[in-house]
């Protein structure tokens, strides 16, 4: 199986992250913004897995019994769990938002100004 160089993972992660940022900055729909934030989060996850795998391969070549570079892969699962929790809270907020102002447009969320 041809090895995919780590660069490609980085490019993918940067692209996902950039899409996320642009989405957050340009969209007004709260749900879309929320999804874009998830996108950025997962861009970071991709990077974490890619780097840890790269690290593990390098260490494995020297010592077959090593576990170095596997922690981040575990860590990603934690992030996914926490993100899932966060998504529930976030979605709950958006639902409450909609109930209150009958919209999910963030430009209506300027009540603190007054």
């Amino acid at each position: 199986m041809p090895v995919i160089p780590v660069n490609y993972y980085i490019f993918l992660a940067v692209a996902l992250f950039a899409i996320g940022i642009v989405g957050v900055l340009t969209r007004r729909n709260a749900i879309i913004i929320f999804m874009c934030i998830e996108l950025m989060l997962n861009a970071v996850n991709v990077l974490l897995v890619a780097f840890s795998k790269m690290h593990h391969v390098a260490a494995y070549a020297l010592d077959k019994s090593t576990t170095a570079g596997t922690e981040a892969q575990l860590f990603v699962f934690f992030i996914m769990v926490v993100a899932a929790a966060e998504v529930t809270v976030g979605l709950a907020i958006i639902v409450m938002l909609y109930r209150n102002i009958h919209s999910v447009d963030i430009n209506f969320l300027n009540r603190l100004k007054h």
Partner: protein
Amino acid sequence: MIDMSKFVYLIPLLPLVGFLINGLGRNFLSKTLTGIIGSGVLIGSFVLSLLVFSEVSAQGFTTQVINLFDFIKVAGLNIPFAFQIDQLSSLFLLIITGIGSLIHIYSTAYMHEESPAHFARYFAYLNLFVFSMLLLVMGANFIVMFIGWEGVGLCSYLLIGYWFGNGNYNNAAKKAFVMNRIGDLGFLLAIFWILSQFGTLNYTDVFAKASTAPVAVVTGITMLLFIGAMGKSAQIPLYTWLPDAMAGPTPVSALIHAATMVTAGIYMIARSNALYTLAPTTQHLVAIIGIATALLAATIALKQNDIKKVLAYSTVSQLGLMFMALGVGAYTAGVFHVMTHAFFKALLFLGAGSVIHAMHHEQDILKMGGLRKKLPVTHITFLIGCIAIAGLPPFAGFFSKDEILAAAHDMHPVYYVLGVVTSLMTAFYMFRLYFLTFSGKFRGTEEQEHHLHESPFSMTFPLIILAILSIAGGWVGIPAVFAENAHLLSTFLEPVVPIRHQHHHLSHTMELGLMAAVVLLIIISIIFAGRKFAGVKDAEEQGSSSLGKFLANKWYVDELYDLIIVKPVNWVAAFFSKVVDQKIIDGLVNGVGRGVQFSARQLRWLQSGQTGSYILIMTVSIILFFIFQLFWKA
């Protein structure tokens, strides 16, 4: 021998008690009671002073230092609250308590128009003043003297501004206080210098060590002490407060501004004679300032029309003569003149008070005249005072003034000539005052003439006593020309004030001749004054030449001070209040507030409430932080 330390502290304590009773009880005590307490404590002090004096003049007396308690005791510094009883202080005790008692008695009648509370306030101040003055002369070190020194300054302020309803009087009080403060600063610096040089402030120790100090240091110390004396004893350039101090009640002028407080400077220099003898430069300065003040004040007195102003300038002039005596090293002569001057100047002021009392607070001598018949006792005693100050033998002023002139002649003939000129002017203006007040026709209003009356006995009694003293007071200092060893005062004071080394430039015949010539000149100037002023009929100012105006306006010294000191100070003050304070300081304080408000108003635009813009700012900031992080370390 009585043990003096048992009762000496009572001398200043009694007036202090009087001050407390009268001051605290001013709303309950009747006027009679206040008068009795006020005068009684002084008479008590006087009796004790007499006891002390008889002890001091006894055979084999040595200076006694009585330690009451430790006043300042820090590390190596120990300043006791101690009194020193010796010839000089016992003499001053007699003068202060004696004349003080007479003036207190006089005041009970003079101030009878005041309400009981103000009457008690007056006596409280007067007692406090005597207390301070007694501390000043009794102290055994410079600190105790300084306490008294400040005390008399304060009481002077309080008494000049006694009628505080009048703005001018208040200004006069403030002027006296400020002028005194300038001098006090000099005195205070001198005290510090003495302390750092000698490590002690006790007279006996300081004077014993005086010769070990370098001449420059002693000169500096004595100069600073002299600045203190200038302020308190009204010498050029700090003399202008004394004539203004006439705003106070007349007995106050007699007590403070003639007989006692203004002689504090003389006392201080006579006390420190051991230092002054070591500093010839300062002595010359003292003599020059003294004679200059004597002349200046005498010329001003020639043209004053306020009865008290004439006497005030005459006081300044006489003080100048005393300083000249101190400057030429004739300390005994200076102290002698302090004593005789206290007698006749208190007499003159109290006489003037009696006239003012009779005239219902009219002080302009051009509106008086012919008071001889209406006020016989005042007239006679005032005449005695005039003769005494003019210096005709055998009145008191003759002996003391003659001694000063003789000492001045020993030093330098110029001092002598200027001293004689001052004496002639003194005789002239005093008799101008006398003739304008007592001879000729009455020039005031009819109502005033109707009310003219001789003062009550409690006012004439002190006058009579003082008149007797003005006649006989000089006999304790009869010069060697008339009788050998008849100068009782200088023999008495010798342990404290060493007898001046006599040069004897003058033979006795020569001295007698000069004396006779001066007396003749004085008589001529009196006759001249009599011819000029005895028959004045209208209240018009006589001959207003430009010189006359110049003198009547006191050489424009007040205006000059106003121009070179008061106005610049006001300008600087105005600059600091209008520009520095209002613009710079307030600008800074308000600027900080305004800056915060302004930046807050600008920053407010960031908080738009738009979630999108918050996110944008957040993102941009994070990116900027990353860039910063990346490139900064490199």
